[in-house]
């Protein structure tokens, strides 16, 4: 059951080959069997899931079911789920039972999907290895000594081990695409504004976007159909029709113009990863695409710019965690200031504190122009590079990450080495463009992801480009031996 596509599962549920309750139980059994070694879930929602499965089975019987009704999924623990703990992998929210659903959760519930549980992540989505979680690190199913990437590492490990048919993630600087690359998955970060951020615990509000982590582009398209759309409760949600992302999956790639930014193939890229990416790109030539080198001259500014913009926004967003209305409160505060400082000092982990301090400093009197304003200007330069590139090409390709999965603990003492794990993904968030990572092969048994970057609102084209590659290759169908 756990190697079927969403379309196959949907057909089986509609034909009555098995019920949603049986399918849900199958996945819950797999989670119970494997979660101990992977630590992919923070909360397993057995009871809640079986109740939703029962309701889905009723809809299937009554012929009021949609395409995804009765199919289970896992949500990153950053999405508020009414009645279920929503921790964002922080001690600060360890006791937080959300009183409402995120829009993404509400839409997915309305489609009749079943929530298996909430997946582990880097604390408040700040990290690239899933090692900053209050609930401990997640293991990569391809090699348990290695990280699954982050911040959506729990969703990625869940999918790599096939503990759910599909999962949600969020991406602020690469947090869907980089774990997808390290775990052999198809991950999509939509255009900024395409998916509602309401009820998604905010990290950096001008960068955050939610998207699917899936076994294939077709599965990702099906879930994006449910996730995308205008939401008046998110002030940056875009009023624009949502196409059927599955309708154009098989469109021909004849004449597709692919741009390869030379800055994405520099000395920072592992040579075996580079060779794998080059082989994948050759495959596109055989599918009818033409390749040309392009330049994104301000690429080197992406990491410095991001580490001003993201911490600045996080320091503001996380000020709501103050020990007053919800979340962790310290014992016996002696005054209000002590309550704030100790609740936050105890509730946040090291990386979160580091980023709050970076942001606080960058926004403080006397430094605003040198850091925040300067970063916003650099952000414009980065965005303009993409605008220029998309005058010449239809899609940009390159590696998702500079290396395959690294070992747990390898980069934890060096924040900057960790930040560079997102060197190829960050610029997409700064520009607000859609990006994907798709499985492109292996180096020493570890997955390599090919990154696709599209123009604004061209998710359908990216999914089409990914789908045709997956029709011609079987990398995306590979599952680690221990989790077959």
């Amino acid at each position, binding site marked *: 059951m756990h190697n079927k596509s969403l379309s196959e599962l949907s057909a089986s549920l509609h034909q009555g080959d098995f019920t949603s309750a049986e399918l849900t139980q199958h996945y819950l059994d797999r989670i119970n069997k494997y979660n101990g070694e992977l630590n992919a879930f923070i909360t397993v929602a057995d009871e809640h899931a079986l109740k939703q499965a029962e309701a889905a089975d009723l809809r299937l019987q009554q012929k009021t079911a949609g395409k995804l009704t009765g199919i289970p999924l896992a949500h990153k623990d950053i999405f508020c789920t009414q009645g279920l703990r929503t921790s964002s992998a922080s001690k600060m929210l360890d006791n937080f039972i959300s009183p409402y659903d995120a829009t993404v959760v509400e839409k997915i519930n309305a489609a009749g999907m079943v929530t298996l549980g909430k997946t582990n992540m880097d604390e408040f989505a700040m990290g690239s290895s899933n090692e900053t979680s209050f609930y401990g690190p997640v293991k990569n199913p391809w090699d348990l000594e290695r990280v699954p990437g982050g911040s959506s590492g729990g969703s990625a490990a869940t999918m790599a081990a096939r503990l759910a048919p599909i999962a949600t993630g969020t991406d602020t600087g690469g947090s869907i695409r980089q774990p997808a690359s390290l775990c052999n998955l198809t991950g999509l970060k939509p255009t900024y504004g395409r998916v509602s951020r309401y009820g998604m615990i905010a990290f950096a509000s001008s960068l955050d976007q939610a998207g699917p982590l899936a076994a294939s582009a077709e599965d990702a398209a099906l879930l994006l159909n449910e996730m995308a759309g205008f939401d008046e409760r998110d002030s940056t949600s875009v009023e624009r029709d949502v196409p059927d992302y599955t309708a154009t999956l098989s469109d021909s790639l004849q004449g597709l113009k692919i741009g390869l930014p030379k800055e994405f193939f520099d000395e920072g890229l592992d040579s075996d990863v580079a060779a794998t990416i080059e082989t994948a790109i050759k495959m596109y030539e055989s599918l009818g695409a033409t390749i040309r080198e392009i330049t994104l001259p301000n690429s080197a*500014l992406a990491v410095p710019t991001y580490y*001003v913009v993201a911490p600045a926004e996080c320091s503001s967003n996380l000020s709501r965690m103050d020990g007053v209305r919800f979340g962790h*409160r310290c014992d016996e505060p002696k005054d209000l200031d002590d309550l704030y*400082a100790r609740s936050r000092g105890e509730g946040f982990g090291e990386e979160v504190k580091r980023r709050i301090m970076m942001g606080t*400093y960058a926004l403080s009197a006397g430094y605003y122009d040198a850091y925040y304003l300067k970063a916003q200007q650099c952000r414009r330069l980065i965005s303009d590079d993409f605008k220029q590139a998309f005058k010449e090409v239809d899609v940009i390709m390159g590696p998702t990450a500079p290396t395959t999965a690294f070992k747990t603990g390898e980069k934890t003492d060096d924040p900057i080495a960790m930040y560079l794990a997102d060197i190829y993904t960050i610029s997409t968030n700064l*520009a607000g463009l859609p990006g994907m990572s798709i499985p492109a092969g292996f180096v020493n048994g570890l997955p390599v992801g090919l990154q696709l970057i599209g123009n604004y609102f061209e998710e359908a084209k990216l999914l089409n480009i990914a789908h045709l590659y997956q029709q011609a290759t079987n990398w995306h169908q590979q599952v680690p031996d221990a989790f077959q």
Partner: protein
Amino acid sequence: MSLDKTDVEKIAHLARLAIDDDAIPYYARDLTNIFKLVEQMEQVDTSDILPMAHPLDAHQRLRSDVVKETDQRELFQSIAPKTDSGVYLVPQVIE
């Protein structure tokens, strides 16, 4: 730029973060290194560049001023650390 103990203490206070004294040298080291990385931005001249605050250059939407939300005070306060008679309790601020 290099941050010292006093800088870290000042930033931690502005951020309302209690941090251990033992950890201050590590924060000073890490923040200094990160700001060195950030200062690579200085290599480009941006004097004529319009700052970009938002990826889509969107403007704020307006909506009509009508009540849509219902009162859910009890639900929202059910997860609060300390409440009394519908208000959140914190240590006394005014003598």
